[in-house]
């Protein structure tokens, strides 16, 4: 009997991708704005100038709108692991559940508690105490991201765990290895600082809007200056950490790096070009219309001039023996589950590291059972499974490039903005101000492309090298998946519409009071019910 329904797997993947991408429209602003608020409030506490308090309160209000909706969209995702990915949760729950629980108990409770104090504590706390609260909110929101990314890194580079043939799942081995996983470190800093870039562009873009309209000029000039400096350093950090992640992928996830670079054949160092643009053809396993820059790829990925990067065809060839060995591992494990004999355990242990590759062959095995493959068909099954080790090259290749091109745009925009702000020539550069304003959504888009690169590039695995994605989903019906998908789309569309409406409304209104603007007394209101004669 066949137990894998590819439609359910695809719908589960689509639903998770959609909810994750929705959720991540809100997350970067939360991560970055909290530290921007902390920076503004720090200047307020140091200088005592009212304008910095106004800035903290105004940008804090926009942060509050984003925070509330971001939390609402995040909660559903935690439930999805149980409802739609129950096989994955069984297999990897120990490793994945621990950081998720810590995130909820430590980081989320911390930020949620202090966010209330931050909003309502202005008149109840001393300046210094309120500043400490703002820093704790910033720390809490970023620690929240840290634990989520530690969990994600465990899926990409499972460290601190081992497979237990008794329980048929990955067992937690080392908390230190989990937390200090190199992928977790680099991914956390990359993601957190990408949030700083998003927040800086958000503040800079809205400030540019005020400057273009000649409103709240002093308020906008200070917000713009702080955001431009915040943004330029953050962009450099994001690019640096992106390079670190690329290097880690080169060492640990060669299929991902080969797909990112559209590299079908092993590179020829040092001349191999870095492909700027191409149309990767997954079906024919080649690129069309390549435009490349020679001598760039090898130092970019390997940080040397002589190390080759293995291409996708060669990775497929290398996977052949692992798939064969993995089939032996799955067969030995199946026998061990019945006999519990030391011989079967020894056979399994000998092939354990390739077990995931054996599971990958399930789709091509007769009756989706790798233990039932006749000896004369093993070669055919292995051959059919080899291309499955590759992710979707077109998606991975282009999502990566769009992210990179956008980050280079941010670098240029922040650098010019910071320079003109320091020279006090902002208002003469109306084109730049317009570009800043229209660039507000781009960092959010870049982070979305980053996630698509990371997650599409990890395929076909949920736990890299151990558990294929098609074996991770729950056994729902297609109608259930379609119904819940439509529900999510409708609900989240309402959230986005609400966020955009409130953001536009409050951004257009500007700060409640602007301590640096010349005060013009409002014209006296005349009520229709005021019966006193005007002339008197």
């Amino acid at each position, binding site marked *: 009997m066949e137990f894998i329904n590819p439609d359910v797997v695809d719908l589960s993947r689509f639903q998770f991708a959609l909810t994750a991408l929705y959720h991540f429209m809100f997350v970067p602003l939360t991560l970055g704005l909290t530290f921007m608020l902390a920076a503004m409030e720090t200047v307020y506490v*140091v200088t005592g100038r009212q304008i910095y308090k106004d800035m903290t309160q105004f940008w804090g209000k926009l942060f509050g709108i984003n925070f509330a909706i971001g939390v609402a969209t995040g909660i559903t995702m935690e439930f999805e692991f149980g409802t739609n990915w129950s096989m994955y949760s069984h297999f990897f729950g120990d490793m994945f559940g621990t950081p998720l629980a810590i995130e909820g108990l430590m980081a989320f409770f911390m930020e949620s508690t202090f966010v209330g104090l931050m909003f309502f504590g202005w008149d109840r706390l001393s300046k210094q105490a309120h500043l400490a609260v703002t820093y704790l909110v910033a720390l809490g929101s970023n620690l929240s991201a840290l634990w989520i990314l530690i969990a994600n890194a465990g899926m990409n580079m499972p460290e601190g765990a081992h497979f237990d043939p008794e329980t048929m799942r990955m067992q937690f081995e080392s908390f230190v290895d989990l*937390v200090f996983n190199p992928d977790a470190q680099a991914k956390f800093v990359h993601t957190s600082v990408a949030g700083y870039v998003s927040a800086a562009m958000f503040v800079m873009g809205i400030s540019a809007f005020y400057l273009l309209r000649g409103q709240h000029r002093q308020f906008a*000039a*200070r917000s713009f200056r702080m955001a431009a400096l915040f943004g330029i350093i953050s962009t450099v950090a994001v690019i640096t*950490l992106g390079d670190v992640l690329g290097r880690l992928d080169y060492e640990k996830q060669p299929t991902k790096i080969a797909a990112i670079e559209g590299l079908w054949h092993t590179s020829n160092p040092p001349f191999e070009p870095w492909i700027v643009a191409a149309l990767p053809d997954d079906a024919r396993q080649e690129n069309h219309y390549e435009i490349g820059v020679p001598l760039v790829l090898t130092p970019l990925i390997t940080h040397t001039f002589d190390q080759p990067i293995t291409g996708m065809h060669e990775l497929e060839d290398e996977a052949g023996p692992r798939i064969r060995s993995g089939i032996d591992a799955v067969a030995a494990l199946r026998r061990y589950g019945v006999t519990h004999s030391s011989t079967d355990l020894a056979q399994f242990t000998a092939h354990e590291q390739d077990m995931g590759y054996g599971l990958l062959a399930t789709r091509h095995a007769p009756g989706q059972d790798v233990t039932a493959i006749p000896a004369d068909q093993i070669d055919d099954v292995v051959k059919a499974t080899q291309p499955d080790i590759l992710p979707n090259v077109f998606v991975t290749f282009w999502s990566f490039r769009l992210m990179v091109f956008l980050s280079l745009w941010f670098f240029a925009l922040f650098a010019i903005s910071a320079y003109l702000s*320091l020279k006090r020539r902002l208002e003469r550069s109306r084109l730049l101000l317009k570009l800043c304003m229209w660039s507000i959504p781009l960092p959010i888009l870049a982070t979305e492309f980053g996630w698509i690169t990371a997650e599409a590039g990890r395929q076909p695995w949920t736990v890299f090298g151990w558990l294929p994605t098609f074996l991770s989903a729950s056994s729902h019906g297609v109608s259930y998946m379609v119904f819940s998908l439509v529900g999510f789309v409708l609900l989240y569309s309402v959230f986005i519409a609400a966020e955009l409406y409130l953001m536009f409304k409050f951004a257009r209104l500007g700060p409640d009071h602007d301590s640096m603007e010349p005060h013009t007394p409002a014209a006296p209101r005349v009520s229709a019910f005021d019966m006193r004669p005007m002339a008197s």
Partner: protein
Amino acid sequence: MTKLLRLAGLAVVLVVSLLFAVFVGDQGPWYFAWVIGTVMIILISGAGAIMLDAQSSLSADGDI
């Protein structure tokens, strides 16, 4: 007495920071870089704002 307590508090912060730097700098260099980098970004952006205050007070041209 208050000054002494404040000094002692700062000394504790210093020791904790050094221990943090030694341990995390070794085990988790990018976590350490994040802490240092975030503090640096905050300080530089804050300094930029204070610099603008100084520029505004020195010049009466009203340019931004």
